[in-house]
């Protein structure tokens, strides 16, 4: 348990660091962001006092109070779930905009990441076991996949499978005219629309797990206990999965948690390319409308979501690795 408590402490610290960064980013930037925004927005139309107020609230920006009390006020707001008012979706609150989009992202990115990790790890195990076979020739191809920008791969996949072949829809999260619900028709439609963006995330992120697992596995295969297992006459399958892969997967799993932030960054762009109704698309809307409260809210929520996913990964790690359990 000591291991888990240490990890939770680390995530709390990281969450504090992210929240504090979020507080300081607008304050470190040149000029007063609220005035800057108001002057920029007044070019396109009248700026209401309510909007100015919402900006000040979003940044916790108040010239009359000290930085420290602003920081305190910022925390108080956060605990009330108040992330300010969105400019793009005015008068909706930033928190409600994010809350609408978040389930889509968690569903799509979560599923795709788990699938990519499972497939990549499995192929990595086989590729290491069959070193010197044709599988080794396939390895440089995975290098190429790893270097492709996620969003560009999305564009190419749309071009081939949606525009040219017409097998899947070009964009969106569900068929037009359907109401968001948990009914069978809606879920089927959502699954159908999720195939292409999900496949893009799987293809783009799989290569990393594959190579990591292969390299770990190659090192593990050299251990004495693998040799002993083979000398005992155990079946190849048992040695490969029960002895080598079982030990090699631990570091790969640890790197899973660490790479999550990178994968999520790429997945957000895939959502934008597919106009998928998740956080990634909202992030793009926020960028093109200079919606600072929304952008910062997204940074905060995505960071917290990644921390949560990391914590889950740690729980699984404790199950996988007896050493993590015995440390206490």
């Amino acid at each position, binding site marked *: 348990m000591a291991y888990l408590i240490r990890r939770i402490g*680390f*995530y709390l*610290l*990281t969450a504090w660091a992210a929240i504090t*960064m*979020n507080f300081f*980013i*607008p304050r470190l*930037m*040149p000029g007063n*962001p609220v005035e800057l925004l108001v002057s920029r927005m007044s070019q396109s139309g009248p700026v209401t006092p309510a909007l100015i107020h919402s900006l000040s609230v979003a940044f916790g920006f108040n010239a009359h109070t000290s930085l420290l009390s602003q920081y305190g006020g910022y925390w108080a707001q956060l605990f009330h779930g108040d992330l300010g008012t969105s400019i793009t979706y005015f008068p909706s609150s930033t928190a409600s905009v994010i809350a609408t989009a978040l389930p889509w992202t968690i569903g799509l990115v979560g599923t795709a990441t788990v699938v990519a990790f499972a497939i990549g790890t499995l192929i990595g195990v086989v590729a290491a*076991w069959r*070193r*010197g*076979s044709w599988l*080794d020739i396939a*390895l*440089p191809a995975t*290098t*190429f996949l790893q*270097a*492709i*920008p996620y*969003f*560009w*791969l999305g*564009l*190419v996949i749309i*071009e081939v499978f949606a525009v040219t072949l017409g097998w899947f829809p070009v964009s969106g999260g569900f068929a037009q005219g359907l109401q968001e619900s948990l009914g069978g028709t809606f879920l089927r439609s959502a699954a159908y629309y999720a195939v292409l963006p999900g496949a893009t995330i799987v293809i783009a992120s799989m290569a990393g797990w594959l190579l990591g697992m292969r*390299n770990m596995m*190659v090192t593990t*295969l*050299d251990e004495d206990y*693998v*040799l002993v297992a*083979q000398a005992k006459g155990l079946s*190849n399958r048992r*040695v*490969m999965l029960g002895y*080598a892969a079982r030990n090699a997967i631990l570091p790969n799993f640890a790197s899973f948690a*660490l790479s999550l*932030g990178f994968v*999520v*960054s*790429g997945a*957000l762009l895939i959502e*934008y390319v597919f106009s998928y109704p998740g956080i990634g698309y909202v*992030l*793009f809307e926020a*960028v093109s409308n200079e919606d*600072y409260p929304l*952008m*910062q809210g*997204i*940074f905060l929520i*995505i*960071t917290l979501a*990644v*921390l949560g996913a*990391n914590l889950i990964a740690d729980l699984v790690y404790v199950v996988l690795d007896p050493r993590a359990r015995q440390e206490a």
Partner: protein
Amino acid sequence: MTVQHEKALAASDGAALLADPVLATRQRRLSLKIKIGLIVLGLFVIVGIIGPFVAPYDPSAIGTDILAPPSAAHWLGTTQTGQDVLSQLLVGTRSTLLVGFIAGAIATALSIIVGVSSGYFGGNGGEALSLLSNVFLVIPALPLLVALTSYLPQASIWLIAAIISVTGWAWGARVLRAQTLALRKREFVQAAKASGERNWRIILFEILPNEGAVVATSFLFTVLYAVLFYAALVFLGLGNINQWSWGTILYFAQNNEALSVGAWWWFIPPGMCIALVGTALSLLNFGIDELINPRLRAAGLSRRTLHAFGGDQGITPVSRRPG
């Protein structure tokens, strides 16, 4: 710092590796990955230098040929306003690579400072630095980069590179810390300490030269990371859209619906270029990885040799070459 200078830096890292006689022998056999990587990367660096001079058209000049597919006049076709895609690609190479190499250099410097001092000095300070890099490793980069760059609409490529490096140094620092922790206990470091060497001298002359390969891989990795994230940021419309880069081409292609009008020549080439540069960097990285960890090299052996050594039974073959 110029591209050439960066290149020289990267090359000198490689040279340091080769200076080791054992490594040099190994190098002769598996240089293919490193060779291909260097050639492809070198070609792009040359394009980055001469691109603006050899571009057939002004990349921003509006023409009458609208959305024309590749032809003799426009090798990679034209955009919705009749701009030449090839010229945009040639001109855009420079800023893309510059951001990559600048960010790679800054991030590598940061990771050396944080990683090596954290590993070498240890104690509470070392733990705190290690904690700092773990925090930065977990925070997802893209939303943070978006939040940062959105306040700086006309940011120069230097500033963008600096911002990207802030989010990209943590991985290298982690690896270097682990490496330094291991090196710190080695006899030659202990001997240097016992003979009263100063700390900075031990770090510069005893520890860092032994971490050349790790520094090189983390530099190459960060260059790839920066190229990808720079393209992503510009693709979202952040940074300076008026500065031609591969991401800018993709941004305009996406916003003018190149996809739905079937203008594949508009968005395929810039993505291919990013992927090729990335592949070259990864190949170099693999080459270096295999120098450090010879077990990964079994791929180079033929099936028959492997069988003779039991390699196809899951046992790592040990083969020694004469010389």
